[in-house]
Structure formats: C-alpha cells, structure tokens
C-alpha cells in the first residue's frame, strides 16, 4: 500500500493533466484547475520542507565541529536572522521593513558580487583553457570570437571602418540563426522526446524512482 497508493495517485493525476490539453470542456477544466491549485500549495509547502532539511543537515555539522562548520554557522545566522526580520518587521514591500533592509543592503549586493566574479574566472579560463586543439575546437573558437565581437558596438564599428559595411554583424546573425538554431532545435527535440518518454513511464507506473526507497 505504501507504494501502491502513490502510484495510483500518479497515474490518475498524470492522465487527468495530459487530458487537459486535449479536452476543452469546462467541467474537465474545473477539475484540473483545482489540481493545479493543490500543486501550488504543495510547492509552497516544499519551501518549508527545504528549510527544515537545511537545519537538519547543517546544525549537526556546527554542533560537532565538522569540516567548514564556521561557514555553516554564518549560513544559519543569516537564515535565522532573515526569518526573524521577515516575521517581526513587517511586509518586505514596505520600505521601512527590516526584511527590505536585508534584501536591499545584504542579499542584493552579495548576489550581484557573486555573479560579477564569474567574469574574472571566464577571463582566466579564456586565457588558459580555450585551446584550438583540433579542427572542431578551432571552429568553435572562431564562431565564439565572431559572436562576442559582433554583439557589442565595437564589432560593427570595426567592420564598417574596415569594409564600409557591417559584415561582422551579418555573419554573427547568420551563426545565431542557422548553425546555432539547427543545433538547438536538435537538442530541444531530443530533450522533449526524452521528457515525453519519461513522463509516460512515470504515468504508467513503469518508472518508480520518484517514490524513493528500494
């Protein structure tokens, strides 16, 4: 029963939701709309589960001074502090709320900084790792250089200065519209077929890994 009931739920809900695309009757959509609302509730509850899991994983590490326990402590202090700021200080949309302060002056600059650091690592990787070791790698690098320079005004300025026409922009757009498009379409179709196959396997109960256990 422990695995049978979830399987039954999966099959019934899965078939209902697939049918929604093909059955336009409003009574059918009343049922599927409710299912979508339940799903949104479950997703919100999953946030709480994630919070509990975070505490369960990190508190023992801090308590028993395992590796990197200091960083976990900083994370927990941030977590608890943000929660208190959110619960006590009023709604975050209000300019005077502590949670607004935490978002604007702690989270926002930190998040932006973490992402900005990537630029430096990309520069280092470009110098050390982007090697034209074979023909395919060389073609990739040439395409990358054309697209990179074509995307900024410098590219078209250079092209116009040298050739009196924006050839670089035209080539860049061709690379994006033709070979890139072809490759991406192949990937999308492959991924979509895989998703359909996996979805069918889950709905029909053949694939049971999502139920957990052995």
């Amino acid at each position, binding site marked *: 029963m422990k695995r049978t009931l979830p399987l039954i739920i999966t099959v019934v809900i899965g078939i209902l939701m697939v049918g929604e695309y093909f059955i336009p009757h409003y009574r059918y959509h009343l049922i599927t709309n409710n299912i979508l609302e339940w799903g949104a509730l479950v997703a919100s509850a999953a946030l709480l589960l994630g919070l509990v899991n975070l505490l369960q994983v990190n508190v023992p590490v801090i308590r028993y001074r395992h590796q990197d326990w200091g960083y976990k402590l900083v994370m927990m202090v941030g977590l608890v502090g943000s929660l208190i700021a959110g619960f006590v200080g009023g709604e975050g949309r209000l300019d005077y709320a502590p949670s607004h302060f935490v978002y604007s002056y702690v989270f926002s600059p930190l998040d*932006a900084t973490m992402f900005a650091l990537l630029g430096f690592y990309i520069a280092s990787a470009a110098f050390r790792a*982007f090697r034209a070791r074979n023909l395919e790698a060389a073609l990739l690098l040439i395409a990358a250089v054309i697209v990179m320079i074509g995307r900024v005004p410098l590219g078209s300025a250079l092209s116009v200065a040298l050739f009196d026409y924006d050839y670089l922009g035209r080539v860049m757009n061709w690379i994006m519209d033709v070979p890139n498009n072809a490759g991406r379409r192949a990937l999308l179709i492959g991924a979509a077929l895989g998703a359909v196959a996996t979805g069918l396997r889950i709905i029909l109960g053949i694939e049971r890994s999502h139920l957990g256990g052995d």
Partner: protein
Amino acid sequence: MNWLARLQHLDRRIIFLLMGLSILIPVLFPLPMSFEVDERVQNLYQAVERVPPGSRVLISADFDPSSRPELEPFFRANLDHLFRRNVKVVVVSLVPYAPGLVSPLLRVYGERYHKQEGVDWVYLGFKEGKELIIKAMGANMRQTFPTSYAGVSIDQLPIMNGIKQLKDFPLIVMVSSGSPGTKEWVVQVQAQYALNMVSSCTAVQTPDYIPYYKAGQLLGLAGGMPGAAQYEKLVGVPTADAMATRGVNVLNLGHAFIILAILVGNISYFASKRREP
C-alpha cells in the same frame, strides 16, 4: 619565442587585474559608439506597438540582483514604452528574489507617468510553484493570484476586470533570467492558448530561445544588455536613464579583452608545442 611559451603560466591575478581594468576604464572614460538594431528587437518593439492603448499587458518580471544589469534596463524601457502608450500593466514574478527589485520600480514609473495603482498598473507579486503557476495562470488567473502584492483582493482591482486567463492579455512580456522563464512559458502555455509573447533574456540564454523566435512562438527577442540597449534606442529612453546603452559601451573593452586572452593563450600554447621535441 621562449617568453611566448612561458605566457601560459601567467599568474591569473594579472589576468584578473587586466579584466578589472578593461571594465573600469570605459566606466570612468566613456566612449559611446553607435549600434544597429537587430531584427529580433525590432519585432519585439513592433509587437508592443501593436497593443491598442487602454489594453492590458502581462509582464512576467523574473530577474534578480545577479541578472539585474542585463534585464532591469529592458524592464524599465518596457514600462516607459507601455505607459507612454497608455497601456495598462499587470506584473507577476515567479522567482522569489524579484519582488524586491520589481515593486519599487513599478512605483517609480507609476508616479513618473501619473499612473494609478490598481487602475493602470498592479503588481500581483511572487508565487512559488514555477511551471505549475504558469500553467495555473493559463487556466485561471484569478484563482492563482487572488490578491495583489499589496494585499488587495483581485476582485477590487479595476485593472483586473474581465481578466480570467492568460489569453485575455493581448501580449505577454517575459523578462527572465533562468528557470522558470521564457522556455517554461513557451512550453507550458504558448501553444495551448495561442498567446502572443515577447521575451527579454540574459545574453547566455539568447541562443536557447532563437528556435522559439524562428518558429513564431516568440514575436520578438531582446538578448542581454545589447538587446536591452537596442530596445532603449527604439523606445527613445533619455540618455540619463539608458542604463543598457551605457553598459553596452563598457562591454566593448571587456569583450575585446576576452578575445585577446583567447588569442594570446592559443599563440602561447602553439609556441610551447613547437618547442617540445
């Protein structure tokens, strides 16, 4: 040629320093350059232009502090464009870090254009659920967002009168930095409800969404800061407010440095290979 081969072992702190300078110098000493507008951005602009004044447009504003430089300029220019044409704006967010950025911007632009909250614009806030929320909006918008971000019931918002589903919006604008984003919108609801959609995305995602644009599922696509700058140019955003236009001129030297790093790295690599027996 020995020094060329030794360049491979250049301390990466020097590379970091040069990268930093290549961004800092154009910030301190701007060198504006003109640029052309892509067909994709032109079509995005035209799609917004075709929305009749007085209509309502849905914007899914899903950017966070890390993607802010690429997407916020487009969002601002889009608000300029829509408000100037007296188009009403309904905004939702599907990522939890968006409200802190989106809500203040809506207030600023609402005041600038003398637009009233609840009548000319409304922010419905963030909802957890990712693709589920997109699907739920497609089926029943009012059930998915029963109140606005300010806590006002959706039934009391004049701007939401008559809006039941996504297909009641003549245009949906997606400003997305990741997941859920443009891809999830197109996959979940575009075909089912035959929705008119345009998208602004990060530069890294642009190649992923070109198939959707070419297939007609997206009417227009603005990729990254260059796309946002082109859109600012079409909308006529004043220079003082044109963040993307200023930013894209900073990118000139940054991109040139990356290309130089690739070239020098490869020259150094081949020079070292030549030295090996």
